[in-house]
């Protein structure tokens, strides 16, 4: 059966593929026509336009103006085609699990290129350096920089820099020199390439390409250190390789004889100036972004745009100053990530992340597809077996030698040495990619006679590394048993312990009197917290930056969400109760009341005492069971009735207003008020119809008061996770504070307005009951309120307190009047709009 399903799936998929391909074919024909239009009619276009204007006798209703939209149309169309290609490829999971996506995209590019070639007999589309370096590369690099795990990166910075700078230079020099040597030895026949040209070629081949590396390593999930070594290296050595390329390019155009020691020294100096200057430009722009996001509160919608625009500007600025643009944008992303994440609104941060990924992934796709398309071009294919094979061999061999040698040196200084298998993977992960191709295309044909051979060789190396090495990477990782990345959950204890032993390590270093990594890190952190954050972060954001707090916050959110989903899964019926359960509960609570009282007495003294437990959880559990067992139908009817009664939805609720500058749903005060009034009216009706007079058990009232008193000191402290229940702190803003009360009225149909209204005992009672019953035990344990007065640790303490407190508070004061206990805090003043609901 399963097999059959698979077969069917396959069939479907192939049909789909064929469909897509044929449609693409069709489109290709269109584009061919388009390009024909462009080629053949471009000369005629003037005439034809001329002719048009003279021929016009009336206003044409429809006119076909292809040339008018041609360029943007083609661009958009190619983007679409690449995306569709990706779509098809990603739909086949069993293929992508074997062959990396990048390789498949290149193959897809081959097919497309073939079709264009077949149609046009000439390759009209190819990746030009301008497009690549100006429009495709920046966002990929920015994304990489922005999502860089900073701590990991800086911990391994030494190793990364050694590999990126020395390794790249080594690769360039060794490849260039060996090829030159081979040519001298006569291994490649007659080629017009000098030593400098060879070095130039070596420098463009030297860089490991981040795009290819990320694409492959993302699917392999190797351990963190290995990943950051390969990834960081590939990012930085892109910068290095471009610099090297420029230096050698200058040398080549200068010509061999004119190069003396001074020029070489200048070249070396310019290498460092370009690299560090680029990084500096990036840092400056990063800081600029951070500063800017401090004050973008009022323009939240375009806030994310700043990051992209300024990031791009940093790239262009560096390019303008002939500094390393790639390094610039990498550092820009790395530098600003922390501050903008803290400064900007949560939504904007999400937007930035998604947009960044969308851009990067999109342009990555386009790059690979076009790498494939570029191959199908007769012009560039100049075959020279010796040159090509030797290049392939040297690239591979020297990469291995370089990595092993450098790691051997590094390992002497590393606390955790890189293992042998790691080194193998690092060497094998030396994928070449689009940067090399882009640089190769940029070569000047006048200065380098064999440009086409170089381009062709570069392409072959790229295909070889991306496709073959990419495919074999995963099996190799498996076979060598490389340590994989552990899938870690966010655990608060882990975070805390981590923090703890970071401090411990620093302390031990201090005690043993040495200056190590930890010492430096703690000093930096101190500086960062005291100065950088102070300048670059919003005051309100500084609070949130602590990671532990972050995890804590996330856990709270998760809990709240689970609670809500749990409620939804049960159809929110917990909030609905039938008569039976009330009676049951009353009996229960009466028998239990003594215990409650006792428990409370003891709690009064050791409010936080860990040992005392309240019997209520068990009660509520039982109640819960009973409700569950209750007749479903009756419940459903009841529910419907209640929903009808209470869940008034404003007519306007889902009206989407269009606004460019705001993105709120339903904040209109009038709407809120209307809902509020309607609900009130319904409430009043049910009030008159309900029977009166059942007082809630006295003991519970006492409980309430104690709760309230206890709660007050806590209640004031910071509550950022402003849950709807916290509304009772601000007296008359009750229903206006919480959008939750409107968006999901099912959840607390009658909680909020309680303060304002003399609630019938029936309702008050049931209210109390509802909360007792409603919260499952788990929810009671886990449900966070606000960080300050939440009771996450319920089993260790009194678990119902939190839930009881806010519901019981709602019991009208008049009923408490006769109890000779302490008065609760003064009832909230009535809002001025009382008249609205009478």
């Amino acid at each position, binding site marked *: 059966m399963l097999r059959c399903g698979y077969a069917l799936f396959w069939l479907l998929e192939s049909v789909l593929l064929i469909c897509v391909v044929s449609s693409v074919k069709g489109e290709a024909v269109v584009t061919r026509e388009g390009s024909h239009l462009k080629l053949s009619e471009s000369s005629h276009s003037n005439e034809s336009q001329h002719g048009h204007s003279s021929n016009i006798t009336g206003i044409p209703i429809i006119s076909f103006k292809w040339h008018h939209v041609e360029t943007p149309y083609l661009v958009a169309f190619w983007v679409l085609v690449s995306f569709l290609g990706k779509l098809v490829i990603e739909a086949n999971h069993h293929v992508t699990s074997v062959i990396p996506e990048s390789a498949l995209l290149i193959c897809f590019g081959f097919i497309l290129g073939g079709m264009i070639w077949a149609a046009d007999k000439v390759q009209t589309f190819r990746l030009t350096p301008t497009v690549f370096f100006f429009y495709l590369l920046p966002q990929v690099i920015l994304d990489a920089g922005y999502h860089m795990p900073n701590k990991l990166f800086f911990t391994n910075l030494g190793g990364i820099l050694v590999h990126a700078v020395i390794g790249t230079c080594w690769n360039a020099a060794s490849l260039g020199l060996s090829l030159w040597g081979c040519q001298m030895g006569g291994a490649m026949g007659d080629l017009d390439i000098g030593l400098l040209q060879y070095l130039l070629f070596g420098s463009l081949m030297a860089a490991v390409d981040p795009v290819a590396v990320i694409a492959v390593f993302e699917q392999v999930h190797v351990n963190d250190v290995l990943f950051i070594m390969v990834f960081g290296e590939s990012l930085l050595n892109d910068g290095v390789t471009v610099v090297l390329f420029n230096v050698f390019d200058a040398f080549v155009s200068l010509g061999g004889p004119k190069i003396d020691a001074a020029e070489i020294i200048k070249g070396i100096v310019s290498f460092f100036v370009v690299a560090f200057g680029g990084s500096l430009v990036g840092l400056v722009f990063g800081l600029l972004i951070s500063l800017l996001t401090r004050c973008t509160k009022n323009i939240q919608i375009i806030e994310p745009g700043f990051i992209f625009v300024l990031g791009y500007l940093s790239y262009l600025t560096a390019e303008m100053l002939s500094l390393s643009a790639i390094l610039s944008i990498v550092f820009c992303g790395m530098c600003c990530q922390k501050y903008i994440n803290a400064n900007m609104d949560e939504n904007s941060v999400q937007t930035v992340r998604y947009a960044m990924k969308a851009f990067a992934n999109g342009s990555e796709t386009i790059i690979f597809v076009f790498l494939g398309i570029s191959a199908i071009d007769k012009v560039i294919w100049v075959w020279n077996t010796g040159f090509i094979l030797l290049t392939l061999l040297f690239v591979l061999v020297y990469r291995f030698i370089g990595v092993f040698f450098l790691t051997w040196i590094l390992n002497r200084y590393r606390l955790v040495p890189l293992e042998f298998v790691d080194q193998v993977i690092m060497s094998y992960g030396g994928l070449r990619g689009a940067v090399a191709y882009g640089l190769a295309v940029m070569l000047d044909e006048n200065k380098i006679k064999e440009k086409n051979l170089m381009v062709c060789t570069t392409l072959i190396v790229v295909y070889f590394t991306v496709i073959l090495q990419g495919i074999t990477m995963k099996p190799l990782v498996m076979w060598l048993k490389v340590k994989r990345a552990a899938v870690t959950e966010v*655990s608060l204890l882990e975070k805390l312990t981590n923090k703890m032993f970071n401090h411990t390590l620093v302390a031990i270093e201090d*005690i043993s009197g040495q200056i190590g990594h930890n010492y430096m890190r703690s000093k930096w952190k101190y500086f960062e917290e005291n100065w950088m954050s102070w300048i670059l972060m919003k005051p309100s954001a500084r609070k949130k930056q602590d990671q532990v707090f972050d995890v804590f916050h996330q856990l709270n959110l998760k809990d709240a969400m689970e609670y809500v989903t749990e409620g939804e899964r049960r159809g929110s019926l917990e909030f609905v109760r039938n008569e039976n359960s009330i009676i049951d509960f009353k009996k229960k609570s009466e028998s239990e009341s003594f215990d409650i009282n006792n428990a409370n007495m003891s709690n009064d003294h050791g409010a936080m005492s860990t040992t005392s437990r309240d019997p209520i959880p068990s009660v509520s559990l039982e109640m819960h069971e009973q409700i569950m067992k209750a007749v479903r139908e009756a419940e459903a009817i009841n529910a419907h009735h209640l929903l009808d009664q209470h869940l008034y939805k404003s007519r306007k609720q889902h009206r989407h207003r269009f606004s460019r500058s705001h993105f709120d749903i339903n904040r209109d005060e009038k709407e809120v008020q209307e809902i509020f009034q309607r609900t009130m009216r319904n409430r009043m009706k049910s009030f008159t119809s309900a029977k009166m007079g059942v007082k809630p058990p006295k003991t519970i009232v006492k409980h309430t008061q104690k709760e309230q008193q206890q709660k007050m000191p806590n209640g004031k402290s*910071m509550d950022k996770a402003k849950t709807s229940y916290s509304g009772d702190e601000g007296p008359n803003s009750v229903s206006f504070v919480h959008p939750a009360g409107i968006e999901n009225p099912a959840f607390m149909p009658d909680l909020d307005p309680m303060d304002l209204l003399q609630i019938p005992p029936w309702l008050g009672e049931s209210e109390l009951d509802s909360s007792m019953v409603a919260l499952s035990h788990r929810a009671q344990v886990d449900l966070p309120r606000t960080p*300050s007065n939440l009771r996450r640790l319920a089993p260790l303490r009194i*678990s119902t307190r939190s839930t009881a407190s806010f519901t019981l508070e709602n019991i009208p004061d008049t009923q408490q009047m006769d109890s000779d206990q302490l008065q609760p805090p003064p009832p909230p003043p009535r809002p001025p709009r009382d008249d609205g609901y009478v």
Partner: protein
Amino acid sequence: MYNYKHYCKNLHKYIHIVDVCFFTVSQEQIKNLYQRFQQLSGNHEKISRDDLERIPALNNNPIRKQIITAFFDKRNQHQNDVGSLDEIGFEQFLMVMSHFRPVNSTATEEEKVTVRKQKLRFLFNMHDTDNDGIITLDEYRTVVEELLSQSGAIETEVARSIADAAMLEVASTNVPHMAPDDFYEGITFEHFEQILKGIEMESRMSIRFLDMNTATMRCGKLSS
């Protein structure tokens, strides 16, 4: 120069100590540590709490107290002894330091496990102040409060609830089906180990004692 002689006399013993705990260090390293020890103790044979508290670099450390206590804790001396010392000699100092040794790349799996356990135990002992084998909520809260006290943004109240949350997390992972009346007393060492198995303790909790700060070393020599 008495101390140096004393040091030379005992060198074999020290090397023995560190060999016992797989503490692969050279004589040079021990010498460095010894000099530092002397510098801290002001040329005495023993070092006291005050000596450690005087280290200026430690002032910014939120858990300074715990760490200093750990040095004087008998549990960290690889003997099954309980209690705390008033002063420690160089041997004990070395013993505590040995918790932070890096693992040899040639170490077998077994050795790695032992080392990991030792490191974890050290950390656990820092939490478990009353040595009952359990980190109770109160103990944990104290540590967390102090840990977070430095970052001014987090108030004691929040730190407390963070500790609570962490504790609850441990409870819910280790005792998944807790009955409503159950009571989680605290984190035992096994639970601690279980929770932290994701962290590569053996590689992360180690310090290189090789590259000594020459400045302080010179100071040490001057004072001797």
